[in-house]
């Protein structure tokens, strides 16, 4: 075996190893990005459930106002856990709204455990405060329980 053949064999082996490593790393990253996508969708689902149902302001006549957040309901929320797609998630909620300066309510819910993948979604909603509907931002941070 001359030096050229050894060189060619080495390059071929190197290419095969690179290819295998590339496939393995791509698969791992694909799994990780799929998990992030799932977490993102679950956070959206939790946010929607909160804004349309659980935290929606209910007026004196008993009419529910979806997309209007009632802070009193958030303060009295008993569970910050929700099952989405057969998996359990925990979440934390904060409300930001405009006054002369930005005001923050919360965060409500358990503290974020260390080294856990989490997703934060900030979306607009109206906040019912002192008989007025104010533009506000709701921050929902969710992670797997």
């Amino acid at each position, binding site marked *: 075996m001359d030096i050229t053949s050894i060189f060619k064999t080495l390059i071929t082996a190197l290419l095969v190893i690179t290819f295998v490593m590339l496939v393995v790393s791509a698969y791992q990253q694909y799994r990780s990005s799929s998990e992030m*996508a799932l977490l993102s969708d679950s956070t959206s689902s939790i946010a929607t459930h909160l804004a349309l149902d659980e935290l929606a302001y209910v007026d004196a006549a008993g009419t529910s106002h979806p997309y209007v957040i009632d802070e009193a309901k958030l303060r009295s929320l008993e569970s910050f856990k929700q099952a989405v797609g057969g998996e359990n998630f925990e979440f934390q909620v904060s409300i930001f709204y405009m006054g002369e300066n930005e005001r923050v309510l919360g965060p409500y819910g358990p503290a974020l455990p260390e080294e856990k993948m989490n997703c934060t979604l900030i979306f607009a909603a109206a906040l019912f405060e002192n008989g007025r509907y104010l533009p506000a931002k709701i921050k929902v941070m969710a992670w797997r329980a």
Partner: protein
Amino acid sequence: MTCYKYNKFVRERRGVADVLAVAIMFLLVVLIGVLLHTFMLTPLRSATDRQLQLKSEYIYETLATAWVENYTKSYLRAAADNLVLTNPTVPGEYLRSMIEDTLDYILPEGYAAEVKLTHGDNVWELIYPNVGQPASAEKQFIHSGTISVIRAEAEVENRTILVQATVTMFWTG
């Protein structure tokens, strides 16, 4: 002499074939690498787009629900009044300034919004930040609905006017 020349020719051909094979393998590895890394982010990009669509829906609903400061009318209802009524409750310039302030607060970073209300040929439009119309090639997150306006001075059958409202969120960079 002839035999020597023949062997040399075969060896040269084999050498070229080996180099070609290695080059093709290298190209394949690069191509597969690029493809894998392009498609592997697809689920994440789709999830981001779904979140942005959700945000656009919530921006629409916030403008349709939250009241203009010092008034008891929502932003979109006040804009619809400005479009179809001769004497709207909220002055046009004040309303535009308030919607701009609110959009500045609730829009995700790097995004602009176009608020458009139409009734027949009449159009009320606001783009914030003022970056011009969104390019058709850009990804847009649109949410639309209907706002009803009561015109007190009109006859009973023409009293309720339906105005089409659309909020378009797009990337400005």
